């Protein structure tokens, strides 16, 4: 089992020193899906951005290592780092409408990366794009290649972004809340599609989501984040059967389920929040020493 992505003790801070990620370590293995869960502002998306080198300007990586398929990309020069990331990783973004250029046809948007960055010929790239569109179950790929993003539904657009993420056979894909903008029936299709594609291509997938229901359907392992710190690392089945950290348990209790209307929906108790914050404070004290 090769870890295509290994993050070791990654700390990211805001200019001024406020930590956004605190000592995060995780592994994503070939053929497996690792979930990142937490409330908004917990830093889930920032981990993905740190790996892809797209952190906002105000954030800097202060310590830690990010190993992409055996190379610590933080030791590489900027140009080499970009090349390495481009060759190994890809992103499935959250909002398919803003991720696609509204003034360009679908075809060139998929092939551009292949032609410009990986140096494929236009014909090969186009053939590959057509294959992929068929693989993500888009009817009539030839026609869709010539359409503009606004002509397609949300589900279709997300399929195109999935196809485009898999286009260059990346070893690692980061999916940042890929189904949050979709409704449940479409979400189901898209999740199944991502899962199938990931298994078929033996990709390592880092899956960022706030929905524990989704985690239980696609992930093999997961990390629970609170305020940029991993509070629990778990295998998926174990997590849902016996969450260890009180915050994880509270998060599960707050998740609504239609099968258990009376038992569901307890907000995370203040006691639990206090305990996690205490834990984080202690961690910061230790880090300063």
């Amino acid at each position, binding site marked *: 089992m090769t870890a295509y992505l290994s993050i070791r003790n990654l700390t990211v801070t805001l200019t001024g020193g406020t930590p956004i990620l605190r000592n995060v370590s995780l592994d994503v293995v070939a053929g497996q899906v690792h979930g990142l869960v937490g409330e908004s502002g917990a830093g889930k998306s920032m981990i993905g951005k740190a790996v892809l080198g797209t952190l906002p300007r105000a954030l800097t990586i202060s310590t830690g290592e990010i190993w992409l398929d055996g190379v610590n990309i933080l030791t590489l020069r900027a140009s080499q780092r970009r090349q390495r990331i481009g060759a190994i990783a890809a992103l499935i973004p959250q909002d398919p409408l803003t991720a696609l250029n509204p003034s360009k046809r679908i075809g060139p948007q998929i092939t551009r990366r292949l032609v410009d960055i990986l140096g494929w010929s236009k014909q090969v790239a186009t053939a590959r794009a057509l294959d992929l569109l068929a693989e993500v179950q888009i009817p009539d790929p030839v026609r869709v290649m010539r359409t503009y993003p606004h002509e397609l539904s949300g589900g279709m657009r997300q399929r195109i972004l999935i196809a485009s993420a898999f286009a260059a056979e990346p070893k690692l894909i980061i999916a940042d809340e890929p189904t949050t903008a979709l409704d449940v029936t479409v979400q189901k299709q898209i999740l199944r599609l991502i899962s199938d594609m990931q298994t078929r291509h033996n990709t390592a997938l880092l899956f960022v989501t706030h929905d524990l*229901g989704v985690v239980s359907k696609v992930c093999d392992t997961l990390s629970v984040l609170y305020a940029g710190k991993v509070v629990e690392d778990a295998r998926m089945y174990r997590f849902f059967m016996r969450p260890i950290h009180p915050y994880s348990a509270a998060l599960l209790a707050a998740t609504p389920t*239609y099968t258990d209307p009376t038992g569901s929906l307890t907000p995370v108790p203040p006691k639990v929040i206090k305990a996690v914050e205490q834990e984080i404070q202690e961690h910061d004290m230790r880090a300063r020493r």
Partner: protein
Amino acid sequence: MMYRINNLQLSLPDMTRKPLLGAAPRIKILKGLTFDLPKGEVLGIVGGSGSGKSTLGRAMLRLLEPTGGNIEFDGTDITYLSENQLRPTRKRFQMIFQDPMSSLNPRRRVGGIIACPLRVNGMDNLDTRVTEALEMVGLPNHFGNRYPHELSGGQRQRVGIARAIALRPDFILADEIVSGLDVSSQAQVLNLLENLVKELGLTLAFISHDLSVIRRLCTRVLVLHQGVIVEGGPTEALFASPRAAYTRELLNAIPLPNPYQRWA
């Protein structure tokens, strides 16, 4: 009966297919909806995107003009009332919006935001009413001096609720008000809403795409699909034995936080 809705139809012009000259073709959004909403009930309106759930809500508040049918609010037909005739009734139904960031004026303090509809409706004792409203949604009084951007998502949504209940309406429409919140704040807001409905004797219509949330909060459910009611009835009955194929499809698509759920 709070609402009696009979054969409600609504169509909007399709501007993407408007010819250069002449009228745009109309798309039928609501295709003849008929249902009753008794007082004191919490009605969940559920459906996929584009099913017309928000349009239905907006038509119920006369924010959109129906093209056919009748809407009867507490015994009076409000379908074709002019804006002037409707004015006294307007304060009896209020709305809470999906995105609190864009529905709260960023330049005004929370207190001013809540007081605004009170002032418009010519009420007195604004300060006491604002304090009362804040208290009811569980926000301390000094939050009245804060700006919306200083609040968390859950707190902002509480301000939206406070603004709606400050007028002491009979009916509130809540359009996807928890879909942008984390599970924990979502649970808080839903619990708050449930208590308010009981305390104030409100009738509530709750639009959501999340059947789990609907089950927790609502006493009745209406399932919409492409502008048609595919199923409606008391929550327990609907969840126990969903009749329409579309309802079953919706239920089956929900990923429960349980790895052993059969999700095929």
